[in-house]
């Protein structure tokens, strides 16, 4: 069972590749969490590109980009797939959300957040809502086979906007 980081914990910083470069040695664009301070960030860890449930989950989040923007948030997906895999997946599905590659060392960021699955090498299906100061305000570990939807993410973001604290 994973030990998922809970509300009130500062979100561990990381820098991960968000787009594929021209070749395997080229890092492409990087996303550094601490560079996103000043806006809310939703991290959606998911097991793998191309698997059915993940696809539906990300399709829903992709529809909700304007809603996240209204709540001063960006939702970012993370899995252990490589940036090349993410690129093909995003192009195939026409997703606009950014997908980060927790690829090398494999699952390092997922481990920091307590959502790496030692038993099979995937990341858990887990959500983190991080506020503008970089503090986790809500986290949720979903059963692998159940797509958690977006309702509780939106509720957490609304609470941040309204200044409600639970920690």
């Amino acid at each position, binding site marked *: 069972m994973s030990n998922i980081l809970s509300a009130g914990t500062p979100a561990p910083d990381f820098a991960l590749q968000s787009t594929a470069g021209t070749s395997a040695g080229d890092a492409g664009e990087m996303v550094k969490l601490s560079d996103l301070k000043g806006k809310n960030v939703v991290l959606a860890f998911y097991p793998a590109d191309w698997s059915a449930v993940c696809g539906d989950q990300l*399709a829903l989040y*992709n*529809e909700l980009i304007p809603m996240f923007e209204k709540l001063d948030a960006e939702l970012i997906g993370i899995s252990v797939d490589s940036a090349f895999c993410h690129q093909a997946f995003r192009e195939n599905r*026409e997703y606009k959300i950014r997908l980060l590659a927790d690829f090398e060392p494999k699952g390092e960021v997922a481990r920091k957040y307590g959502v790496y699955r030692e038993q099979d090498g995937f990341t858990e299906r887990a959500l983190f809502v991080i506020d503008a100061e970089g503090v986790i305000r809500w986290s949720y570990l979903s059963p692998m086979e159940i797509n958690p939807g*977006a*309702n509780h993410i*939106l509720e957490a973001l609304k609470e941040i906007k309204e200044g409600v604290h639970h920690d």
Partner: protein
Amino acid sequence: MTDLGNDLTVPVTEDDHLQGNIDAALVLVEYGDYECVHCGRAYPIVKKIQQHLGKDLCFVFRNFPLSQSHPHAEHAAEASEIADAGGKFWEYHDVLFENQDALDDSSLATHAANLGLDEEGFQNELQGGTYEDKVQQSFMSGVESGVNGTPSFFVNGSRYDGDWEYEPLMEYLSSLR
């Protein structure tokens, strides 16, 4: 935030698109997208369940177009609302699910004309976005209730996370009767 349930935030009312008695023992709500192949597959399953459960079931359809994934879904949803205003919601709903490969604007108009809906009025309302807000409200009610893809089903107000093939869904519904 303590409530981690996934329950309908907008209760079923007579204003919904519903088949059957709103006071039935079982109220099955589907959030669906006319261009979604899974919804297309669920369509005959729901029909079969309706036949089987008869008056014990009230079936409600709410529009949930995933317009980023499905280019025709939003207009199809709005068109179903135009058909509703003409008293033909369910007929139109059925035609769309039976013709998922013909959902472009001109096909939507043809389906409407075939049902005897006023063609010019239909075109004006579709192009004018008369029901855009209504569809958006339906979509947001789904998001806030925990819709996580299409189709999403709610049984007596709570999201059903089980398998929606005929047998498991039927078994679940029967257990609540």
